[in-house]
């Protein structure tokens, strides 16, 4: 495939950006260049200590500058005369970048050293197409365009995972990132995972045996999946399906609580994807103060707060990474919204995160690509480091999971202990 100039620039790690030194906690600013020598102790594959790596998928294109605004920037104020939050309301992270006022839990985690921000991050090419960029994000295989497996499934393949709960996603459809040869578990609610009282098969075991036999020839994905579904269903019967009251009574609350319940029951999830229920495709009426975007961020904050409380000590072995297909145009459009853009921001949260830092090769708001914030950090950099350091994945396996990608650690997570 031919890549655009920006891609080469990224791939080669060349940068002429004015670095913003925003990291206070570690002294002297942990930027890409300063962590080259960071030694990373990788745990063995399948290490019991390895983290559950969770993506929170904000489909629709999350604006990274509404999430992580530049404070006191006159350019931003000019580009977004009405569609931004006031600096007085933003939650300052380091004096240069802040958080949207609704992201209070993320601010707390940042202050506790458990949340890091990567700003000006995204896919290396960037087409401004939801569907192409989502596929690219989830395949994460730019040098292997024929792939049909998603990166999360390749992660499971690389660790030799075979258990049906090693990969999990909420929703009614299997996300591309999770598709592949390792069977995974996808369901929307606990109501839909157990076999009903079977009427003429009062003895459920007889029905289950029949279903197993009917799907035993392995000739299709449906057959193979059915075997796994029956096993998964039985194991899920022991998982409490009730939602603790601490969660918001929303789709997102239900999804986070389902994941927590499965983790607390020791089902052995290695990676999970939470489809975030929100409206991020804000072409019109972004709702930065009390509309769509405010609701999105409130929901994220509330859900992470409840989830952390719910899972207790398991938090020490969780890394949550937010992903989105692109950010949005720097300048607001004529309808109080934002069209599709390129770079966005990512949040990395968890007990093993080297938090309290905003990691960026900040491109600034004036040197744009056709009005978009430039991607200066490839999102795969974040995934690679999390998989390697917190997932215990050796470097050679990383290159199988992310073909053609040379990982360079950002220093956003701590070694497993």
């Amino acid at each position: 495939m031919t890549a655009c100039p920006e891609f080469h620039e990224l791939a080669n790690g060349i940068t002429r950006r004015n670095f913003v030194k925003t990291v206070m906690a570690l002294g002297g600013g942990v930027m890409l260049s300063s962590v080259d020598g960071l030694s990373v102790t990788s745990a063995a594959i399948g290490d019991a200590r390895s983290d559950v790596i969770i993506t929170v998928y904000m489909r629709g294109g999350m604006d990274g500058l509404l999430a992580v605004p530049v404070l006191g920037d006159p350019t931003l104020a000019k580009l977004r005369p009405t569609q931004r939050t006031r600096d007085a309301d933003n939650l300052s992270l380091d004096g240069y970048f802040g958080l949207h006022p609704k992201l209070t839990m993320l601010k707390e985690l940042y202050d506790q050293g458990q949340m890091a921000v990567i700003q000006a991050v995204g896919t290396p090419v960037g087409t401004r197409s939801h569907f192409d960029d989502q596929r690219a994000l989830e395949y994460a295989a730019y040098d292997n365009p024929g792939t049909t497996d998603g990166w999360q499934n390749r992660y499971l393949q690389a660790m030799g995972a075979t258990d049906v709960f090693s990969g999990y996603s909420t929703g009614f459809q299997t996300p591309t990132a999770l598709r592949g040869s390792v069977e995974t578990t996808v369901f929307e609610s606990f109501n839909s995972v157990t076999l009903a009282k079977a009427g003429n098969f009062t003895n459920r075991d007889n029905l289950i045996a029949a279903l197993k036999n009917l799907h035993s020839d392995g000739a299709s994905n449906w057959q193979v999946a059915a075997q796994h579904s029956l096993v998964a269903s039985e194991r899920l019967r022991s998982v409490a399906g009730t939602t603790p009251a601490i969660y918001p009574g929303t789709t997102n609350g239900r999804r986070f609580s389902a994941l927590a319940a499965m983790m607390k029951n020791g089902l052995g999830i290695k990676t999970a994807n939470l489809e975030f229920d929100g409206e991020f495709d804000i072409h019109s009426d972004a709702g930065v103060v009390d509309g769509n975007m405010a609701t999105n961020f409130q929901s994220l904050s509330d859900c992470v707060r409840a989830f952390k409380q719910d899972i207790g000590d398991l938090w020490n072995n969780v890394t949550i990474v937010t992903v989105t297909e692109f950010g949005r145009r720097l300048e607001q459009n004529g309808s109080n919204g934002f069209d599709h853009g390129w770079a966005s921001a990512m949040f990395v949260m968890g007990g093993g995160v080297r938090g309290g830092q905003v990691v960026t090769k900040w491109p600034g708001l004036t040197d744009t690509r056709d009005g978009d914030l430039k991607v200066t950090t490839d999102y795969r950099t974040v995934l690679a480091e999390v998989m390697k350091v917190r997932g215990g994945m050796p470097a050679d396996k990383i290159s199988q999971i992310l073909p053609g990608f040379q990982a360079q650690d950002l220093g956003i997570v701590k070694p497993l202990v």
Partner: protein
Amino acid sequence: MQIPTAAENSALLKLTYGPTPADRAAFRAMGLAAWLDDQLNPNKAEDPTVAATMAKFKGINLSNAQLLKTLPYSIRPRNASEELSETTLYRRIYSTRQMFETLVEFLEDYVPVNIKTEPSKRISYDRDVIRANALGDFPTLLWQASVHPAMLRFLSGYDNTRQHPNENFGRELLELFTVTTETPYTQTDVVNAARVFSGFRWDDKKQQLKPTPNAHWQGSVKVLGWTDPNPGRTAAQISATAYSLVRYLALLPETATAFAKRMARRYVADSPSSAIVASMAAAYSQSSGNIPTVIRAMVNHPDFVTSLGAKLRRPTEFIVAALRTLNIAPPGQISFGDLSKNDYFSGSSLQKLRILTATHGHAPFDWQYPNGYPDTEAAWTTLSAQMTRWNNAIMWANGTGGYQQPDFAGLFSGQGVSVDSGNDWNSIVDAGSLQLFGRVLSPVRRTTVIAGAVKSDNLVRPGLTADQLFVEKCRAVTLLLLCTEDWNRR
């Protein structure tokens, strides 16, 4: 019993929501060509009962203007979208224009507007754009969709102005509705497409499109190989330029291929062969995008028959096919609306059916994004999908959840098996398979079904008469057949 040909099964399983005995009889009497002609005839009369039932609904028969001022839609617009969704399900089950109904679903996924978008106008979008053109030409359908108020709302058309062209619609026009990203268009093409569509307003009082020169980006525009001076000084000029662009894009060979591929993905296989796509694309180009012509090319291609079983039924097709094949109705009575209730259709059998489709994540027209519900097996093969399908099979076979008992004796006697004739297990499984799939199962799978069915607890209930025992055998077999992969494919 008569074993259907592969041609019959291909046509009836792919082009209907599951064939009934009446569909099979009609097909056999007419033959494929005449049956297809009949299904593609835009003047084909609807079944009188269906037509009469549809006439009893209020909202789907009102204009935009009437909907805006008519209770209960004026105060609770959701009633309009629910009515559209529920009547759509009714039509899928009962319409004798089955091919047409499958086509409506295909086109609604192709040029989608989420059903919760401007519910009062969404009814008109379905009726006046999709249904009115489903047996016509795609370029015409696409033009009408592009300037319909429901689409103008869904893809930010109202917000697209001269000063700030909103790219939402312009981008999807290229990416999803015409050439797709298989064609290397540029950001400039997107911006120019957005400029062409800037300034389209809608006049709710007059119920007409209002292209507005002072909100329209004026000046020369170029999109791919198309250029236009785009003076945009009058409403007529704005419309003419936009129409010209849509026609140009819709008639490009790249669009023909994209349309063909997408239609073949719906009806033939997740990854259709390049041969059938090329054949359908040629038909599209030669007919200037005539939809029935493309369908004929698809049905007449050898892949159409050889691909039988290649597609996984999506959830709502799975549901509708079960009701049609088992000849059971949605649970309870249809409500045509109760003004005393805020939830206008509360308790209606069709509302219950819509909620069932939502538990599968597949309620009609309720996909959030402009690319339509996914149409591949990989997307829909999940734990909850499989469990929910099996649970539904249990519900229908046992007549629970408000559903009536299937008339097993009637269904099986239609396939030549009754309590008085041969009713050994093999005969019952073969009859059930023919009823459900139009073919008998492989001997191995038939044995598996029997081995499972004999374990049904109902078979050993004391005091069963011979008739009751026969029904229970049919019930056990039907339940398991509905749980097979065969039932989930077409």
